[in-house]
């Protein structure tokens, strides 16, 4: 993986952390997933790799479609204001990326650029899920984490099990599907996909 490709993936991830509109964030996440699928197909050396790459293409398309349907069915009068400003969110994401890359030693992916990119996407996803009020943005945070993990699968030095790779892709897509279903139910119950409304259960 080239430095430019890695920078593009991180830039798309940070974009999801800072943007205000849900549709823009969905476009960024879907583009990131498609870039990952393209990298996987380009590097595919065996039939199994090609199958795993095609599964990533299908995942990107399915998630993009799912999110756009979710947005269409949960129209908001105006975007929810996040708990923290975009600049602070970006700052938090960058600090978390630096912490992750400092703490996790090199672990031997086939491209040396891939490891920090993977950790950066996981950090960006965690920041997005933790700092956004919108339920849909929290799900997008999970997808960002998944995209980082998909990169690890693509850049693994050995041929990994295609069953495991497909299983992970299917599992994660299923979880995101269930989360989208919850988002719609929350929207119809509370009138907004706002996680701030989900704080009544406390001790």
């Amino acid at each position, binding site marked *: 993986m080239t430095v430019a490709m890695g920078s593009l993936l991180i830039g798309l991830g940070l974009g999801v952390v800072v943007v205000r509109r849900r549709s823009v964030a969905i476009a960024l996440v879907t583009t990131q997933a498609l870039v990952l699928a393209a990298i996987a197909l380009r590097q595919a050396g065996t039939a199994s790799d090609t199958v795993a790459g095609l599964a990533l293409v299908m995942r990107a398309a399915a998630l993009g479609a799912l999110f756009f349907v979710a947005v269409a069915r949960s129209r908001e009068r105006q975007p929810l204001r996040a708990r923290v400003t975009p600049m602070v969110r970006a700052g938090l994401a960058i600090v978390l990326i630096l912490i992750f890359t400092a*703490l*996790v*030693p*090199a*672990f*031997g*992916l086939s491209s040396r650029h891939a490891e920090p990119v*993977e*950790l950066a996407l*996981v950090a960006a*996803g*965690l920041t997005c*899920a933790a700092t956004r009020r919108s*339920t849909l943005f*929290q*799900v997008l*945070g*999970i997808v960002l*984490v*998944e995209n*980082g*993990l998909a990169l*690890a*699968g693509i850049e*693994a*030095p*050995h*041929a*990994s*099990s295609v*069953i*495991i790779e497909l*299983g*992970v892709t299917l*599992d*994660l897509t*299923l*979880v995101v*599907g*269930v*989360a989208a*279903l*919850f988002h719609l*139910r*929350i929207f119809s*119950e*509370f009138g907004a996909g706002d*996680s701030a409304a*989900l*704080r*009544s*259960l406390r*001790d």
Partner: protein
Amino acid sequence: MISTQALAIMVVAAPLLAAGLVIVAPSRHLTALARASAVATSALVVVLVARAVKDAAHPLVGNWIVVDAAGALLLAVTAVVGLASVLMSASYLQGAHSSFVADGHRDRVYYVVVFVFWAMLLAVPLAGNLGAAWLVVEATTATSALLVGFSGKAHALEAGWKYLILTSLGLGIALLGIAILAAGVPTGEVSGLAWGRLATFGSGRATALSAYLLIVVGLAAKIGWAPVHNWLPDAHSQAPPPVSALLSAALLPTVLLVAWRTERALAPLIGLPAAQRVLIGFGLVSLAVAVPFLWRPMAFKRLLAYSSLEHLGVMALGIGFGTPLALAGVALHIVGHAIAKALGFCAAIPLLAHEPRAARHAVSGIGRTAPALGATMGLSLGALSGLPPSPLFVSELLILAGGFESGRPWPAAIAAVLLALGFLGVAHATIDTLVGKAHRRNMTPLPGLRLVTRLGGVSMIVFVGLTAVAPWLSGSSFVAALVRGLP
């Protein structure tokens, strides 16, 4: 004779087949079909567990399937709790007034998701490699989140959402650890992640330790260890009671098994003491966080949830201490906790009909207004508090003794103090539930009371049996197999 491997596949396939049959069955036969399928599934598990215990010294170890002593323990627990949950589900559905899905499909969807969830739970102890174990644990998240939010009420949606987001992020972190391991294991393909092969990881101790920490911290969010337990009280209190039983008594210890196996598999690389210290740390923090909540007046199901936090902490301590005494305690604790907790959550079905305020508030004097229900709740709470001669009292003693035996007197002493405080909190709740001030209550026949009372009777017999065998457990071949782990 059917091979052990085929039997293991049948154990997972049976509830999936049941889910398929429930989809096509006529509505009037749903309950009978679900119950028959649950009995059949449990019978298959009994056969597999009997074989695993008999051959405890020679476990079946493959790249995809493992049948060993620890797995057999969790399979047995999951089967018993699953059977009780399915048997009690009709009583829950009879009294449920709202749901996530349209009324006409409610019962069918509920049973389908319960059986798929049960199948995934049964698959976890059988998973022969870390990747497959992660896959089935993640699959339990999707299915159980639907069940947590099944009532469709605002609080249930809130609980389901928290559960889904927190555990998904946690499992994402665990998968990052698995990806790091996969990159450093010389053999590609699935065999590289088989439990026995993880020790061939070649990227150094520091990287292995990072991967271990990521996996255990990630799984902790699913196990419900403090400080990443925030979803646990909400999900347990808002899920349908039979599902709460599955979550608390089966899911949490089953995921704990994955953390346990990871610890054993990576110990040669990172050092057993370092691996154990992480689990002891989680155990002590979970106990310390749980105890103050056990002292507060709290809704019954929420109290049971905080009790789960306490007991999963105790199990973490026992695994961290790692001696035969401590592991005998862990085995006993897993079984005793599962039975007491399943009984408690099943009792919540008639309780909520008897006293609807119990959904949000602490209740008292149930023993005065509904003696049979009060006795069942008292049995569950008494066992969970560790009241002698409950098997949980004996298991906690074994674990603490194991802590001293392993040369860790301070963690064992701190745990002893915290357990004593926790005991006082739950014992107070038990007394209040049984003989506290009673209010005017619904005295019409309570749904599921007869079945819950019978479950209480069976539980009592099992508790006595467990306490009776406890002194011999640490010297048994079963515990020797737990100590050895997987080859």
